[in-house]
């Protein structure tokens, strides 16, 4: 099945703006917010969301990166995974509202690892989850607070998120075999 673009550049920008507004609304302002992205593309999205939240609220909001490699439950399967840098803003996460950001939410195992990683760094007051695309098929009881687009998909399909900073182009596409339920 050919690759089908589901979000164009403008759609991604709109989704991130909406997520930023929702974060501010649920937090009643930008106080105590820290936006942490999960490498690789989650970090880029976290930086964009932090910039948007800062712009909308007029209060500077810090972004960072949270690598979850060492906390994954599949380290002894497949190839060796190389960790990416973790960068926690100078203020730390203790007592703050952390918004975790990832590009695609799928089984929930990455987010489970992220929660463990976060627990070793500090004790946030609240942790929320933002994802650009939620494709379903959760294997753990994890639910996002802010979603750019819900994309019911077959497990045989692939979701590709391309962002300017990492890929030189910007879109979200889907390819592969759709099954009966999602056709």
């Amino acid at each position, binding site marked *: 099945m050919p690759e089908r673009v589901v979000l164009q550049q403008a759609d991604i920008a709109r989704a991130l703006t909406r997520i930023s507004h929702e974060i501010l609304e649920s937090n009643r302002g930008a106080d105590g917010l820290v936006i942490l992205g999960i490498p690789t593309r989650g970090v880029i999205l976290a930086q964009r969301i932090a910039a948007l939240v800062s712009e909308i609220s007029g209060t500077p909001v810090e972004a960072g990166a949270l690598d979850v490699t*060492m906390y994954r439950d599949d380290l002894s399967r497949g*190839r*060796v995974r*190389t960790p990416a*840098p973790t960068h926690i803003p100078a203020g730390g996460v203790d007592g703050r509202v952390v918004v975790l950001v990832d590009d695609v939410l799928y089984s929930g195992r990455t987010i489970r690892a992220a929660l463990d990683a976060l627990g*070793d*760094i*500090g004790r946030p007051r609240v942790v929320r989850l933002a994802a650009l695309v939620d494709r379903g098929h959760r294997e753990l009881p994890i639910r996002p607070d802010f979603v750019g687009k819900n994309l019911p998909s077959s497990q045989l399909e692939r979701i590709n998120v391309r962002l300017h900073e990492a890929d030189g182009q910007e879109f979200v596409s889907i390819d592969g075999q759709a099954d009966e339920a999602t056709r």
Partner: protein
Amino acid sequence: MRHLLSTRDLTRDAAVNILDVAEDMAEVSTREVKKLPALRSKTVVNLFFEDSTRTRISFEAAAKRLSADVINFSAKGSSVSKGESLKDTAQTLAAIGADAVVVRHGASGAPQTLATSGWIDAGIVNAGDGTHEHPTQALLDAFTIRRRLHGAASRGRDLDGVTVTIVGDVLHSRVARSNVWLLTTLGAQVRLVAPPTLLPVGVSSWPATVSYDLDSSLEQATDVVMMLRVQSERMHAAFFPNAREYSRWWGLDDARLAQLGEGSIVMHPGPMNRGFEISSGAADSKASTVLEQVSNGVSVRMAVLYLLLSGEREGLA
């Protein structure tokens, strides 16, 4: 990575990758919770046939920070002193279910034998074999140099254009051998300075320049001076007239330290013989990285154990 036996087989990319992973491990060491769950349920055996406190506790700390189970095995007081062979010891470790064996042995090539004999499937890390190699020491030295030179921007960098002068007992030094191969692979220029009696046969074929005169070598600019320990315990003949003479010609004293350029680094793998190969002034100076080398050792060994033990073991069912 299946085993780490020598720095000679490491490519530049593989070496830079180990140093980059060590950067992440070093970052963990600054946190309140200095532990990662990455190697939960893995068993690491520290198999030490030679005495070594700092290397063993460094590997032990590294394995524990990655949540592995650690078994320390010292040949003294063990069945080895009753005549058990390396093969039997290895098969015992295999039966216990060791996933990695960190081996220190007085015989050059013992880790290689363990890795290739088929006695045990575990990943083997060479923690010093005879006068052959000590790869994790060379990796931590390279890591320390890279961090001193590039600071926070170290990730992904090699050591292109860096000059390293290695001084002292090259003949008995596995640290010197591992460093010559690794530093050259990473792009550094290596100079060896030693008394002619403490240079191994065939040193001219190594990728390093050789000199007998420390003072004239220090007249040329060098980024790093790496002092080696004089290994009296391995010396069964007279290699130099006496300690004072050695110290006068090849010791890093305060006058030679003052001669080094601004920003130069003084390294020593430890344990130091103060006043012999290095003066207290040099060992405790701002240029000295001796203690950084110790803490970086834990990060580098964490990186090696992680790369060895995570992922599906190559060549294993």
